[in-house]
């Protein structure tokens, strides 16, 4: 069955340090991949998405993600974390075009310390 795995439940990083959040998917073909962020009391916001082409995609708030087909991964990165980045991050994928629903991972909670 199609699924997406986020192995890290909770990550703590220091402000200014680099960040990488892991995401792996299980699907027979290349899916459409997304990263969303959820801040307390707010709705899910799209950070970036990958459909095809360049495997390194840039998103909002200084985030980027790299699609690696050989590893079935789509890890999210940021070179320098800000305190305001503390939130819950969700990887998601869709197995077809059109409006098929997104399948979400369980999320990774990011804490940022001074």
């Amino acid at each position, binding site marked *: 069955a199609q699924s997406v795995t986020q192995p890290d439940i909770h990550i703590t990083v220091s402000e200014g340090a680099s960040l990488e959040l892991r995401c792996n998917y299980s699907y027979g073909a290349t899916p459409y991949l997304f990263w969303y962020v959820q801040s307390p009391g707010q709705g899910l916001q799209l950070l970036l998405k990958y459909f095809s082409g360049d495997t390194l995609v840039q998103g909002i708030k200084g985030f980027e993600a790299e699609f690696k087909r050989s590893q079935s991964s789509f890890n999210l990165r940021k070179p320098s974390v800000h305190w305001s980045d503390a939130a819950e991050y969700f990887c998601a994928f869709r197995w077809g*075009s059109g409006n098929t629903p997104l399948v979400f991972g369980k999320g990774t909670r990011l804490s940022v310390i001074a």
Partner: protein
Amino acid sequence: GAGVSQTPSNKVTEKGKYVELRCDPISGHTALYWYRQSLGQGPEFLIYFQGTGAADDSGLPNDRFFAVRPEGSVSTLKIQRTERGDSAVYLCASSPIKGTNTGELFFGEGSRLTVL
């Protein structure tokens, strides 16, 4: 409105009661989705609509859950005979139809349901 609007933002009810949650999508968005998010979990798909019809309701957990979208805009998620395990945040999202839509879902802030 500018974004997806969900009401109520918070609902506390007693076990066995009936509940309705409303979603008003972004104007012009023809696809509408309902998800459920339990504490510490990612959003779990329930149902999605293309226009007025349910295109996929495979995520509805049982027949106590039902959703409608009679005019292709506002949707209502209905839960009968609520159980404590129904307590969660119910998220609504919408998306425009494009030729080959691979775009994002736009989410509301959710309706938090607590069943006592």
